[in-house]
């Protein structure tokens, strides 16, 4: 349940070090996400943004550090346990089940629940109207934009308190990017906190409460979203021009 005005962050990351085998990618990350916030993480390639996502969600085990969600420690918990606690994750690529239909993809989002919540499905179709007419279509046959909608819809079926998106606009044409971010805003308006990783992040920072810059495995800057956008240095270094 959402605690209003509580001093406890929704997601609290302290000193996370993580990587792949012998290669350490993250060298001590601290980050907080408050309930209902949108936080965007930006940074160059190889900075560790995706690694951080995977570590939070239990796809990678951190070598050091602590992650807490709603006050409960989730460091190193496996992905299917993390899902049960109210987090959801949309990976950057291969984020749908191509041989399943739209409806089936969404149903999988509700796997841990005893029954598929019909009301939630209806809400998701409202959020992503193109899906309503394609319920029985195999997702593998759909366009990139539609797939991204299915991917996000799947993550939202059980009404998570925190939604994590890894480069949601990466595979999309520019006109679709605006739509996706508009949808992200709509999702946030229902109270879901959103943690976004983005490389080309202008759109994302514009609607974020806070943003932070990750480079070479450390957090090197943090401010409100619009402030980062206005910051010329960061703009030059990380946002690819003005």
């Amino acid at each position, binding site marked *: 349940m959402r605690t209003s005005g509580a001093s406890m962050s929704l997601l609290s990351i302290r000193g996370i070090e993580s990587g*792949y*085998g*012998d290669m350490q990618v993250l060298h001590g990350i601290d980050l907080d996400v408050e309930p209902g916030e949108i936080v965007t993480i930006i940074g160059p390639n190889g900075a560790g943004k995706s690694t951080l996502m995977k570590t939070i969600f239990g796809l990678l085990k951190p070598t050091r550090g602590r992650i807490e969600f709603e006050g409960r420690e989730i460091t190193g918990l496996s992905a299917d346990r993390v899902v049960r606690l109210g987090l959801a994750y949309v990976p950057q690529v291969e984020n749908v089940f191509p041989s399943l239909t739209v409806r089936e993809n969404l149903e999988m989002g509700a796997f841990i629940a005893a029954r598929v919540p019909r009301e939630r499905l209806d809400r998701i179709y409202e959020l992503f109207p193109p899906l309503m007419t394609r319920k029985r279509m195999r997702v593998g046959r759909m366009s990139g934009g539609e797939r991204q909608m299915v991917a996000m819809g799947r993550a939202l079926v059980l009404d998570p308190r925190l939604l994590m998106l890894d480069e949601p606009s990466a595979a999309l044409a520019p006109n679709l990017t605006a739509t996706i971010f508009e949808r992200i805003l709509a999702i946030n308006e229902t109270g879901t906190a959103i943690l976004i990783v983005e490389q080309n992040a202008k759109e994302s920072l514009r609607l974020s409460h806070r943003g932070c810059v990750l480079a070479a495995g450390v957090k090197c800057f943090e401010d409100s979203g619009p402030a980062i956008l206005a910051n010329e240095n960061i703009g030059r270094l990380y946002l690819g021009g003005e």
Partner: protein
Amino acid sequence: MEQLIGVVNYLVFFAISAGIYGVLSLGLNLQWGATGLFNIGIAGFYAVGAYTSALVCGLPPTAWDGRMVGGFELPFAVGLLAAALVSGALALVIGLPTLRLRADYLGIATIGIAETVRLILKNEAWLTNGVWGLQQIPSPLYSVIHRHTAAYITAHPGLPEWQRLLVSRAYNWFYLLLVAAVLIALYFVLKRLIRSPWGRVLRAIREDEDAAAMSGKNVFAFKLQSLVLGAMIMGIAGALYAHSARFISPASFEPLYGTFIVWVMLMVGGTGNNKGAMLGAFVVWGIWAATDFVTDYLPWTAPQVAALRIVAIGLLLEVVIVWRPKGILPEIGAKRRAL
């Protein structure tokens, strides 16, 4: 004293078998250890080598034979060479359709070729004498040595029993030296090959095939070379077996056991390490021989005991895979991998 000589003679015999398995393991080590190829049809290449050498060196068909061809009575070295070439050719036939594909495909294709080889050996009596097998396979220098040992024994009628036992089996000592010579020669040749640029490419393919392909190497050609060369080595092992056993039949080459035990040997000894391959052969063959002795004391029937011994080897494999997949000796030249 006689008992000691009996043991010694047995050990010589044991070492010959272990050595032949060592040759097989070296061949597998080249295919799997160095290149990552999944060959579970070893018995096919082994059998083809054995039969080729037997037919090349053996006697022509007699009236009792079902055979109609073969038996050219050529020297041992020719038989060895022929065995290598025919096994290599078989590997070529299998490798061409499968090496561009996933490992599973090579696996099932090698099972298939071993099975097909066995069917041909059993059914084409005009070539192989079918289930009755090939007899009287000549062993290199056998008549020469036998003449000398027989002469020695007749010349010394008062010879102590233990000396007689020793001398009469002297040929096996020679054969052991022969097997050892082949083993050592192969070891050094493979050592040079593995350390050469060619060998490095093989290892790169094993570690990360896509990366190797992207650096411009013709991955398919390298894999084929490794498969064929490894098969040639297995063919040589087959020839060595044929000339030591002097009788072979399709039953000597049960595909599953012949193949399987070599994999256990390599995994136990140390995948990717030639010394490990040879070590594994001796260790596992030793375990196998030991189980033969133990089973005399067990209350079960012979087929049951035979089955139990194989289950034991199977268990050994699974234990190795779970707890020490790299084997006893480490892989040579293994870099610390950053995934």
